[in-house]
């Protein structure tokens, strides 16, 4: 096997105009169907973003469908509705307000591992490149145990452990993501991230916000440059970042103007500018042969976890 080092080309090729059309079309159909179209709208949007992201000029594919997500939504609504109903009954009916509210929070906390697990399983198996699927091999029980542990630590440290929670979670997730027979790893150290947040915060305050652009760059670089893809043949791809504070400034300032002066309707252009910048700043380099990736991951059809996350606005990755 030749170990030839190469650079891989990652790009976002969408445009503000195209995204605007996607949004408007989705919105029209959602309005006409009084909201029922939403799962299909979500699938359409995801398909758009995947199709407009290319690796070596070949697009990714999202093969999830509105129908799958619709089923997931029904289940998600039932689950959330039931939990909410029980808590409301406890609060209003049994008049045990504190118990009811605590129960609701406990429920939401407990839901997090389910959401993460379900979302990843569904989205990864529905993502592919050159026909090769991604996959998620994490175990729900493991994740629940981990989340409980990390949540406990976070509470005990008044939130400081939250940074470690995030990094640990990312490490766990990446360890379990597959792209065909390629594996992922996240090797960032939480203490470093904590430092970035901590020092960055003060610097932003002292420079009256000017440092923000460097801060964003530091956080972005932390995530990008600590990600690795590797396989059983000792081949790997590492990710370098070419993002500069200047570029961030240009894009963000431009986005603010665009969004404000169009009363929000210019958002698709703003979003596209951001995507283009961030994705093209990721420079993968390594010696994995893109012609030699094997199909290993299964199809997973249940979108419930994804849709619960959507309803509760949990964001994964």
């Amino acid at each position: 096997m030749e170990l030839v080092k190469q650079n891989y080309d990652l790009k976002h090729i969408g445009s503000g105009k195209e995204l605007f059309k996607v949004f408007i079309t989705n919105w029209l159909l959602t309005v006409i169907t009084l909201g029922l179209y939403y799962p299909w709208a979500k699938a359409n949007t995801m398909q758009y973003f995947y199709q407009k992201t290319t690796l070596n000029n070949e697009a990714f594919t999202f093969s999830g469908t509105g129908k799958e997500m619709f089923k997931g939504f029904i289940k998600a609504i039932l689950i959330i509705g039931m939990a909410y109903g029980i808590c409301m009954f406890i609060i209003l009916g049994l008049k045990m307000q504190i118990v009811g509210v605590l129960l609701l929070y406990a429920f939401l906390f407990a839901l997090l591992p389910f959401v993460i697990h379900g979302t990843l399983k569904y989205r990864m198996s529905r993502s592919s490149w050159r026909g090769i699927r991604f996959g998620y091999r994490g175990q729900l029980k493991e994740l629940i145990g981990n989340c409980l542990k990390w949540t406990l630590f976070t509470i005990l440290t008044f939130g400081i452990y939250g940074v470690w929670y995030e990094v640990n979670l990312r490490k766990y997730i990446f360890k379990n993501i597959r792209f065909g027979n390629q594996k992922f790893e996240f090797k960032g150290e939480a203490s470093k991230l904590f430092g970035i947040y901590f020092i960055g915060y003060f610097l932003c305050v002292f420079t009256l916000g000017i440092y923000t652009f460097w801060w964003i760059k530091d956080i972005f670089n932390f995530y990008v440059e600590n990600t690795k893809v590797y396989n059983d043949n000792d081949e790997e791809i590492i990710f370098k970042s070419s993002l500069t504070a200047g570029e961030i400034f240009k894009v963000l300032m431009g986005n603010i103007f665009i969004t404000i002066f169009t009363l929000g309707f210019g958002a698709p252009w703003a979003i596209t500018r951001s995507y283009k910048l961030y994705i093209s700043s990721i420079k993968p380099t390594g010696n994995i042969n893109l012609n030699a990736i094997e199909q290993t991951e299964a199809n997973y059809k249940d979108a419930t976890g994804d849709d619960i996350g959507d309803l509760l606005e949990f964001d994964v990755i």
Partner: protein
Amino acid sequence: MTNFKGTYYNGTSSKSNDVLFTINNDNLKFIYNSNYINWDLNNCLIQDNTFEISIKFLDQTINVKNNLEELKGSLKHLTDNSFYNKILKSKLYVHLTILVSIIGMLYLANQHIIPPLAEKAVPLIPKSFDNTIGESYFNDYSKLVKIDTLKTKTLNKFKEQLKLNNPEKINLYVVTSNQINAFCLPNGSIIIYTGILNIMDNENELIALLGHEIAHYNNRHSIKSLIKSTSSYMFLSILTNDMASITGVMADNINMLQNLSFSRKQENEADTEGLDFILKNNANPKGMYTLFNKLSDESNFKISEILSTHPDAKKRAKKIENYLSNNKNNYSKNPTLHRLFVKLKNE
């Protein structure tokens, strides 16, 4: 029959293979690894990604970047013709038109369709709901304010002298505050601030206020407003894809009560019924007029929260004035009510 050039992925590896394929009668044929492969295009997923057409069969894919127009011609009847794709491909001005139309329709619906629908739904809601909401709110509210127990007692004695439709449901409370305000909860609890009592000069004004607030209770105005704004909020949330708000809006309900302003229609209703209440109790309707005048007095502006939720006080004073000049009223001074009023002011 044209030979099209494409890149084939066999679904088990990411290796790209250049292939030549033909399309004939909805059949796509090509050679791979010395084998003839035939796909029935009716069982394939065909995606038009502008710069590339992707044809997928099970896990296998053929991507085409060249000769797209001709390929589209052969695939025309097979490509995804959903509404979504048809609208998506249209020109920008079509989308802009759609945008403006939707906003216009949403605005109209929100102003003219949702409120009456919501109001029609209210009779379906049992009165016990009103009581629960009101009680729940009062439980929290009463812990945050100072209730003047002496005045409250006197005020309730005052109430007992009046003719009410459902006296057992109405509970009056006096809260110590400079604010010139009074409001009614859905469970029949009426809170009156000492601020508004202080600007009153006679029992007729108090009767006018009580009549007005009781009318709000009798007509379930609080719940109607609540349902209207909730449905309005939910309507807009659904249509702006803000699904999480729907789950969140239910949590906001109870806190909205004190900030709800009644619609003009509801205030007019309350005024009319309030007037009936005054007459039923043989009181002097001039009290309503003087009360409104006081409320619209600019010197009371700063501390008059009631003015912000009752912006038409001047207009409504005028209405009463018209009524008064057109009607002779038989009213009698009720010594008990007068005595209790004086007691209330001086306690």
